[in-house]
């Protein structure tokens, strides 16, 4: 089956939101209300339980080296965000019911018939992707079109993307392609281009992302964390601390009884 994933080349994104629409349509997700965020052309705002692709619109008062603009120093960055299908997935490692599994395509999948809505995955995802829908009670996120992959089809968003900003395939092959693209951009003068989360070396905290990105500005600008970590990596220290606490509690209980008892007899 191999490792499947996305390479999202944000330099190609034109912000058409075809991926958002295709995802909603294929997965038959409910709409998120026809409201304006009031902050930019991005009226989706964030990934959520019923939004599994989200196109970010970053309006910058800085030029892009490869573009010429008429009046002001100005450029747009658009990026289609999605669940990263992390190699070390915070959501998966946190889920107490085993609802979140790693599939044969090496993607991270929430089984809706198992999830009991405890909400732990929501707090455990270092990218703020998975969310619990209040009126449904379960956690939802991108499935990397698990149903389509089973039929040997390309995920809906990658299929719909008119500029090949979203590319789907085997992660190894995508990584190579992405590397070539970065080199090409560097040659063209876009020195800032880099890959975000392509492998464990680039992002040791997650062990690399199956859905990685090509970005041209700081990750924060796209609402991505600069050095994310799967919480489990740090959880060990908390357990050690709890161990010491347990020792302390035992000592306090025994001490209280022994001292209190002696007072009674004396």
């Amino acid at each position: 089956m191999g490792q499947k994933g996305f390479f999202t080349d944000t330099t190609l994104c034109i912000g058409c939101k075809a991926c958002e629409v295709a995802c909603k349509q294929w997965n038959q997700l409910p709409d998120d209300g026809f409201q304006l965020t009031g902050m930019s052309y991005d009226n989706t705002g964030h990934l959520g339980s019923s939004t599994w692709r989200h196109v970010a619109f970053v309006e910058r008062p800085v030029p892009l080296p490869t573009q010429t603009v008429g009046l002001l120093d100005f450029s747009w960055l658009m990026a289609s965000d999605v669940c990263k299908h992390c190699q070390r997935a915070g959501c998966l490692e946190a889920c107490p019911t085993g609802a979140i599994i790693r599939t044969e395509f090496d993607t991270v999948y929430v089984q809706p018939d198992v999830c009991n809505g405890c909400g732990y995955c929501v707090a455990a995802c270092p990218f703020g992707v998975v969310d619990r829908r209040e009126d449904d009670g379960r956690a939802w996120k991108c499935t990397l079109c698990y149903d389509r992959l089973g039929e040997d089809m390309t995920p809906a968003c990658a299929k719909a993307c008119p500029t090949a900003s979203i590319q789907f395939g085997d992660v190894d092959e995508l990584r190579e392609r992405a590397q070539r693209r970065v080199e090409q951009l560097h040659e063209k003068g876009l020195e800032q281009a880099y890959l975000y989360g392509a492998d464990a070396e680039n992002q040791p905290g997650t062990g690399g992302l199956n859905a990685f990105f090509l970005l041209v500005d700081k990750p924060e600008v796209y609402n991505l964390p600069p050095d994310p970590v799967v919480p489990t990596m740090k959880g060990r220290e908390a357990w050690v601390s709890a161990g010491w606490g347990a020792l302390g509690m035992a000592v306090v209980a025994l001490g209280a009884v022994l001292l209190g008892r002696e007072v009674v007899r004396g």
Partner: protein
Amino acid sequence: MGDIRPEDLEKRQDGRNIDSRLGDLSGEGAQQRVKDTDEANPSRALLRTRPSVSGVNAEEPSYYGQPALKEPVWIWSIPLYFYVGGVAGAASVLGVAAEAVGGEGLRKLGYRCRWVGAVGDIVSSGLLIHDLGRPERLLNMLRVFRPTSPMSVGSWVMVGSGAMNSAAVLFASRRGWLGRVGDGAAVAAGLLGLPLAGYTAVLLANTAVPVWQATRKSLPLLFMSSAVASAGSLLELLPHSSHEAKVLHLFSTMGKVGELMTGVAVRHEASGLEVLERPLKQGVSGTLWKAARVCAAASLALGLWPRRTRWMKVAGALLGTAGAIATRFAMFHAGKASARDPQATFQPQREAMGAAEVTGHTHASDGKPFKFPLPVLRETPRRPERPEAASGAWEPEIPVP
């Protein structure tokens, strides 16, 4: 599955608008129930940035100030559960100690602890189930055992503790082997009480929420000492004999001292960066945190008062309880505020307090080296020596406005 019929979805105007005669609902998200449609802008409050200025050039880059993480979805029953579970765990521990080394005189106290433990465990499960998005699937918690998930570990601990405490209550003061089974169950409940009181802090620390993650070393100690204080306070409120009072008083006093000290440790651990510490200083969580500190300190002071009257004892125990509950709510709301603040996520990671803390790499995911804060900058400026003071030429310090 299958709890929604396609016809209903069509009627419900949920934005799918699929005519069930033409298409069927079989997509991955088709089973998602909808009462109200989502909000586009998660923080409906006033915009923190000017429209169209995403903050790329600013010192603190972010995406229009939007949260980088999802706020934990838990409701009030979770912090309350942290309190109740702590009481149950610490009471079980005290109960075993009383029965093991307390002799006949403390046997009654041991039995009372069994009761507190059993009732606490039952109330705890109720509170947890209340928070589940799908309460009818509560048993799925015991579907697997996942050591990487503190919630999974904790569920098993709680179920075990509940079973053991219930058995201990049922078989208390029975003769023969039934009594011995009860005693054995009480010992098991006492052992399980230790993780029961502390795993909730590990559960919080093992998330992406910045302030919880940053305080992972001290938070378990705070929760466990607070559990001791709250169990002691509760048992002091229940009727007890005068020689039991000494044990309980010692127990809760040690808990309160621990609670106050570990509270300082938590503040210290969070103080690595201002954005991390902020929720403990400001807003709802900051107020709760201060209230918790004041309650614990007042309760300790009342407990150590030389000649305590009856009302002082009751007031001390009540304040101890209030302090323990406020502590859990303060940490809970601090986490929510911390998750809402994108800078609390971004800044520590830039300062090598993200993954770099455990993996030791030196560059962020965009290839930029971490900003290691220079240790010199962190030192509190040393006060100038005052030889002048001796010669009488000392100048009064000008208070900083």
